[in-house]
């Protein structure tokens, strides 16, 4: 940077301009577009090995360390993505099973409309579903205003605090995914053999014991299937963060990629690095299923 005097017809002013010679020299010594090896993966915005070891050596307690790591964008997103996935998936399983058991007891006439209504949260576009909930929890929306009334705190805003934003996103996730678990469990309940249930009843099993020792084991393969789908969906969580405008408080891996690519600064390299890391995570989580598919395929006898 050099200072240049720009003299117009009325006055002279000093402006700072890029020095063409210096720029050329800089280009010479450190050219742009140089092969970067794996540095994009290890820089501060991704795996951040240097920063990690730095934080490890400076922080005194484990809490400090976690706090420091949380400030790195990639790990922050990873924290949220994993928390979201591992809180939503089990809740969805349990809730879905109970709703399926409940709906199964209903008279035939209302089952159809009930399933219809239950499907809606899952079918509706994620962004639109999250917007609908977002407007309801808005400070002036019905739920937001009611919460303010209950806690008698007119400044209470679900959007302003990080933990509340996380809770909101996780509740949205449960709302969005429960129908899937419900439908699968409900279809499974239709195929539970009634002989086994009757046998259990004759042996004196209570209603709860029949659920616990007959229905739940029978549902186990379905539960694993749902869990797998939930893991896949949880790892790609993205739309609710845009819908709830929650990016300041909670980011996910997909959101980082989106943010890198969106707008004018197109950070292809950075986005690609995050993409690859995400893909590796997905593959690790999927490995058990892949092995099972391999076995199934061989059993098919080809």
């Amino acid at each position, binding site marked *: 940077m050099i200072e240049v005097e720009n003299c117009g017809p009325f006055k002279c002013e000093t402006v700072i301009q890029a020095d063409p010679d210096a720029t050329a020299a800089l280009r010479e010594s450190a050219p742009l577009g140089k092969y970067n090896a794996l540095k994009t993966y290890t820089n501060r915005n991704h795996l951040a090995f240097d920063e990690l070891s730095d934080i490890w050596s400076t922080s005194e307690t484990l809490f400090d360390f976690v706090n420091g790591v949380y400030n790195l964008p990639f790990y922050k997103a990873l924290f949220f993505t994993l928390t979201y996935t591992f809180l939503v998936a089990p809740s969805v399983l349990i809730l879905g099973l109970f*709703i399926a*058991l*409940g709906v*199964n*007891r*209903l008279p035939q006439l209302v089952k*159809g409309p*009930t399933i*219809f209504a*239950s*499907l*809606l*949260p899952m*079918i*509706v*576009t994620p*962004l*639109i*579903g999250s*917007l*609908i909930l977002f*407007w*309801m929890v*808005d400070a*002036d*929306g*019905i739920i937001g*205003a009611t919460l303010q009334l209950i806690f008698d705190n007119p400044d209470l805003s679900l959007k302003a605090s990080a933990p509340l934003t996380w809770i909101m996103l996780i509740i949205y996730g449960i709302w969005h995914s429960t*129908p*899937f678990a419900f*439908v*699968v469990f409900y279809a499974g309940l239709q*195929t*539970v053999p*009634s002989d086994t249930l*009757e046998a259990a009843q004759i042996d004196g099993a209570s*209603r709860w014991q029949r659920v616990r020792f007959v229905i739940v084991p029978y549902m186990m393969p379905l539960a694993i*299937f749902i869990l797998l789908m939930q893991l*896949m969906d949880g790892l*790609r969580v*993205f*739309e609710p963060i845009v*819908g709830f*405008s929650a990016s300041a408080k909670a980011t996910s891996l*997909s959101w980082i*990629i*989106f943010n890198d*690519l*969106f707008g004018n600064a197109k950070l*292809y390299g950075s986005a690609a690095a995050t*993409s690859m890391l*995400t*893909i590796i995570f*997905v593959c690790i989580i*999927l490995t058990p*299923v*892949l092995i*099972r*598919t391999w076995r*199934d395929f061989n059993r098919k006898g080809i």
Partner: protein
Amino acid sequence: MASSFKNRAPLLTWFATSMVVLWLLIAIGPFIWTVWGSFKVQGDFFSKADWRNAIYGVMTIVETGDSFTGDGYHGAWIEEEFWFNVLNTAVVVFFTVTISLTMGTLGGYALARSGFRYAFWLLILALIFRAMPHITLVSGYLLPFFEWNVWGKLSTTIVVLVAINQPFTLWMLHSFFLNIPKDMDESAMVDGCTRFQAFRHVIIPVMWPGVITTGLFSFLLAYNDFAITSMLLSSENQTMVPRIASFLGSVREQGNVMFAVAAVVSAIVPLFFLVLFFQRQIVSGLTAGAVKG
């Protein structure tokens, strides 16, 4: 479960029913609330004073003279030209579903009948690509699209959506064709049909249930997509969902949140009818993978 041995415990029945009713309130309540509120003015839908204003429309009567108003819809569809985005969505969805079903049926049939080992690896690849977050693929697409100057066009988006959708259609139709007995097309071939004739005269007449189910899910993917359409379409050419997202930024400032609410409700209506008419197919499609596995 046979209901003959169910000695109904009234307390349990009461508990189960109330839980289902609570779930229904949670599941569908937000939609009813938003649809109802979309016919009000902003002062009612986001009522600081009293939430019951949104039900009776106190401010709406003051501002427009009636307790229902179509202002939000007028603003969204005509002033903000939302109809154009709806047309775009229709084009994208129609072509995505048609192309991916055509390729999916042929490919799924081939994979189901093929005895080669590579069929397995193709399916595994399909499974992995299906599990990936969609946006991870976009980062690879963007740069070439800019270089070839095809970014921002509907046709580009359709191609990418088909590509993303294809693993799913392949899996679904592959397992569906496995359930059609091999004997059917083999006996047709014994009778002198070529492979393609066997497919046309024997398989096509019986494949519609599976194709309709797969088509529904392709429709949902194309219709609900936000990550790809928002990245690949220029702002003049957007489909509904990214348009709604970009509404949010602009309408907040102008105080026209009701435009966005109306647009959201408009986007829900087709999905509502989809579930209404195809509930059975959606349920069977959701459970297909589970029951099979």
